[in-house]
């Protein structure tokens, strides 16, 4: 069973250079918008399909790295310098020598398939002449894709070494996407022999229909008769639909379509079927409700015996599926696979922990971790106040509420990813033990724990109250009968925070340790 070990992109879409390592089984691609998750899936799909028409329908202009084009246009514009888009798919070693060779960027002897979009050699003279005109536009229309294996075997389109399917849920209900999906699932579930048998009986059935039911009409006609169309546009492949409970899939809601299409593609076929080797899923969370998404995650995590590449925005999908399988796009390449070194217990923690913001953490450069909702609600305001007029957004700092004190899990991530993290926590009456000794194993430059060193000031609310006594008494003192102001604040943390934000924002001052945290994170 072939699996992708590495994807190499050169001048493809937004990547001038990408070397992405993949593992067998599940892989999760994480990245912000525009980080290039879909481009990676597209590149794999194009190279493995080895289809010129797919490339042509997308257009070379959309595939060739725009910066490379600009660089070329700003250069001496020599034909030899024309940029080429390159996609190389490195595969696990199989038994077919026609896949194996050194014709790849690594010059390493291994199995693989590549796609190069370049100006073919026989057109170069023509392009050279064209480029002599200083006003000539970039010669996109001379570009053509070329597909080959690493052994420089160009018969790949006929051989289909890797059976794959791309499911893009953002285009899930487009007619063409549905047709492609249906056809590839059909070919997975029926081999070539079975398919041609079914094709011909379908044709026969049309003829029988004509003979049986159009006969009456045709008999009264002279010269011309009616028939039923059979062509490349109307045949079994184009007329097939997938039914669920007798209803065609394309009349279902998008969410249901997403779910069904993904699960159907993941199904293990029976005897005589050719299972997919690789499933590419583009943002499977689209159109899915929370509960459907949980079900989908379960299906994905149980998909054994094939390679899965999931591009996602969803914290839930990536953490529930095991963070160790994640590759980060749009970050420092050295950090890309860093999550695979995550300890098993931390990976499992995020799989089991309540829904969290781990994806946001992973994708950030600077993060302030806080214990709970109260800190989270007030932090933006406090930050603005003590950051010399700057804001969280301006400084690119994210505040994440951990909902407890599981900071160490995040610190482990921070260590792997180099995220700058300020942990803001309560001392819980024992500063030395809870806030110093507790984090002895995480002494590193990019992380620091901030807490009030005075054991008496044990929680955020206590500190807040003591440092803003007047304001708090004024806001919460008047109507209190049984509880002291501080006790009230401790008992209604989130509401108090919200009220402080709402009514006391201008006067509110952050406790010293929080000011320190803000100053440090901004460095």
């Amino acid at each position, binding site marked *: 069973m072939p699996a992708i070990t590495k994807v190499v992109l050169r001048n493809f879409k937004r990547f001038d250079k990408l070397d992405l390592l993949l593992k067998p089984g599940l892989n999760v691609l994480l990245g912000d918008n525009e980080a290039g998750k879909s481009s990676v899936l597209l590149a794999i799909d194009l190279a493995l399909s080895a289809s010129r028409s797919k490339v042509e329908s997308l257009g070379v202009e959309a595939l060739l790295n725009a910066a490379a084009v600009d660089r070329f246009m700003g250069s001496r514009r020599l034909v030899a310098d024309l940029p080429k888009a390159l996609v190389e798919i490195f595969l696990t*070693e199989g*038994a077919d*020598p*026609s896949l*194996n*060779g*050194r*014709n*790849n960027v690594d*010059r390493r*002897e291994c199995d693989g398939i590549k796609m190069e979009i370049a100006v073919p*050699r026989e057109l170069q003279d023509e392009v050279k002449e064209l480029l002599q005109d200083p006003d000539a536009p970039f010669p996109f229309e001379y570009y053509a894709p070329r597909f080959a294996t*690493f*052994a*420089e*075997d160009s018969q790949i389109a006929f051989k289909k070494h890797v059976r794959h399917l791309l499911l893009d849920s953002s285009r899930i209900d487009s007619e063409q996407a549905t047709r492609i999906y249906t056809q590839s699932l059909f070919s997975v579930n029926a081999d070539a022999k079975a398919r041609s048998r079914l094709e011909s009986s379908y044709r026969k059935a049309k003829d029988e229909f004509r003979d049986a039911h159009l006969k009456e009409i045709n008999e009264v006609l002279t010269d011309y008769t009616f028939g039923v169309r059979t062509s490349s546009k109307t045949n079994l492949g184009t007329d097939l639909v997938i039914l669920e409970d007798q209803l065609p899939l394309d009349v279902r809601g998008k969410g249901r379509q997403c779910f069904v299409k993904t699960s159907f593609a993941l199904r293990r076929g029976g005897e005589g079927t050719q299972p997919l080797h690789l499933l590419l899923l583009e943002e499977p969370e689209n159109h899915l409700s929370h509960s459907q998404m949980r079900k989908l995650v379960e299906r994905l995590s149980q998909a054994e015996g094939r390679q899965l590449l999931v591009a996602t925005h969803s914290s839930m999908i990536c953490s529930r599926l095991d963070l160790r399988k994640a590759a980060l796009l749009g970050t420092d390449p050295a950090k890309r696979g860093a999550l695979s070194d995550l300890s098993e217990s931390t990976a499992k923690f995020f799989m089991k922990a309540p829904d969290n913001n781990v994806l946001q953490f992973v994708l950030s450069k600077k993060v302030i971790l806080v214990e709970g909702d109260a800190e989270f609600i007030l932090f933006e305001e406090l930050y603005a106040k003590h950051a010399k007029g700057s804001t969280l957004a301006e400084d690119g700092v994210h505040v994440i509420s951990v909902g407890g004190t599981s900071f160490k899990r995040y610190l482990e991530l921070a260590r792997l990813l180099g995220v700058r993290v300020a942990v803001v926590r309560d001392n819980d009456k024992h500063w030395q033990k809870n806030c110093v000794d507790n984090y002895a194993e995480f002494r590193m430059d990019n992380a620091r724990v901030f807490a009030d060193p005075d054991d008496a000031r044990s929680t955020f609310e206590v500190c807040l109250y003591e440092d803003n006594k007047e304001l708090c008494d004024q806001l919460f003192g008047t109507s209190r009968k049984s509880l002291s102001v501080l006790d009230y604040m401790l008992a209604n943390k989130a509401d108090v925070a919200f009220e402080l934000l709402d009514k006391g924002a201008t006067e509110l001052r952050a406790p010293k340790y929080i000011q320190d945290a803000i100053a440090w994170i901004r460095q």
Partner: protein
Amino acid sequence: MDKTVTFAVAGSGKTRSIVEQIDPSRRSLVITYTTNTEDDLRRRIANRFDGRDAAVTVDTYFSFLNSFCYKPLLQQDMQSRGISFSAPSQTSSRMPLSSKLRYMHGDRIYHCRMAKLLAVKGCYEVVRERLDRYYDDIYVDEVQDFGGHDFNFLLEIAQAHARFRLVGDFYQYTFATSHDGNVNKSLHGDYDEYRARFAKAGFKVDTTTLGASHRCGPAVCDYITKTLGIQIAAASASAARVEVVESQGDVDRLHSDQKTVKLFLEQHWLYGCHSHNWGACKGLDHYEDVCVALNPTSWALLLRGELAQAKPIIRNKLYVAFSRARGNLFLAPESLFKKHRSGT
């Protein structure tokens, strides 16, 4: 080291011996030089395994050299587009071994220098590793046709761990895979020295297993041994005979006889009959009666009883032609076919 080279006589069942030796539980590669034998091999292997799975790959030598060795390892360096089967130009031959220009005919690669290029680029070890990765047993048919750099290449890659079984017939050497200058020019000059090259490379040399012809009858075998000086014995008795034909009437009858194939030195298609060329029919096994048309030089030698003194290449081609006969062998002067030759 499990390497054997078996020298056979014509019709002794070289191809059959390869097909029978194939072990379906092992991954086999069969390399042959002529496309005649390639088709034949495929057919026979398919027959033997009759739909059952056997990991057998059949490839012609140049397809193997190009698709398995050259392209996977060197295509990106050379950026060649296709193979040139021309003789190398003098300019290219003056280039140093390290120069790309020595190997290229425009943007195509010289067929006769591909093996040398692999050597110069230090690829022998990688090719051996590739062979071992994909195959357990490697069979090479028509090994006598390896010439030039290809012969050295063959002996080198045979140092792989895989089991090598080479089969050939020294005297059926009629055209070399390739030649380049003086490289292995005298390789086929002497049978003893030729065998010694294999022995020195670690091969066990077997001259007995395939020593008798199953195709040709005793009369044809005796005739070959007597006139061409090439030792060949018949495996079984047969009534087939050898006849020298000298009258126009007899030649005309043979010419129009669809059951008898007429073999010419060259340009057989000009004679408008069921025909082939001497050398090119190597590997073919389906002719019954055969009529060999002798060109004037050979005919003169035959009449003087000195055919064995013909140039080795001519003698070898005649050997191929004579030994095609399952049935009767007729010999006639080419001049009597002249009236059937188109354009005359």
